[in-house]
């Protein structure tokens, strides 16, 4: 049944890895858990690693957008990292643009984006 994904802390940021096949309730739990962690730890950034995700459907896509919006309200920036090429192609065809969600190719670049933001104030977008 549904589980709760571990949320790791790296400096002032939070990191969570989405594994291949999450049921919908686990995805919903993640939204709440991340919001709570952002506030509790005063996190400035959230990295969602989807390297292991074989697909991103509209449900997970919506969750990524929602997490980005919630985090922004809580003064944290969200970066989605590790999207597979086939997933990107499929998302575009599906009609999901993930508006408002920043992406980076890998964890290292995602952390660099967050570091830039915390040193330069609010990011351009």
């Amino acid at each position, binding site marked *: 049944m*549904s589980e709760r994904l571990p949320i790791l802390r790296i400096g002032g940021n939070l990191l969570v890895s989405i594994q291949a096949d999450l049921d919908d309730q686990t995805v919903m739990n993640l939204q709440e858990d991340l919001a709570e962690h952002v506030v509790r730890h005063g996190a400035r950034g959230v990295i969602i690693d989807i390297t292991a995700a074989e697909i991103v*459907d*509209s*449900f997970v*896509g919506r969750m990524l957008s929602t997490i980005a919006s919630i985090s922004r309200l809580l003064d944290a920036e969200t970066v989605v990292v590790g999207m597979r090429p*086939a997933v990107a192609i499929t998302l575009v065809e599906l*009609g*999901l643009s993930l508006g408002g969600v920043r992406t980076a190719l890998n964890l290292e670049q995602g952390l660099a984006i967050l570091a830039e933001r915390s040193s330069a104030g609010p990011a351009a977008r």
Partner: protein
Amino acid sequence: MTSPGLDPEGTRIQLIATSDDVVRARQLVRTLAVGCGLSLVDQTKLVTAASELARNTLSYGGGGTMSALPVERNGRRGVRLSFTDEGPGIPDIDLALRDGWSSGSGMGLGLSGARRLVDEFELRTVVDEGTTVTVVKWSR
């Protein structure tokens, strides 16, 4: 319906009654897609479409089944999936297939998005009786 040259391998049925079943449906479709020689991108598109349609079956149809079948036509192999429920049906098909329209909490991309991800798409629905969506993805 698509029927010429059905592979005799037989249909696999997956019950869709919980969100765990949506996960199982995805896994079954992935296995069949790999077996039929679909490219990685086509596998991803088909599994994503299956996820959308299975969730529709669960959330709007109140549950149902997915039947999955390897098919072959003119030397090309593919996967055919049928999602069937006995739910309320869809009163306005054109509206339901429109991007951005949703009767539920989704983004309204389920049906229209799934249609773009497959090669063949057929929707049969009768109000108060149920809905069947059948899709096919062919190997290139």
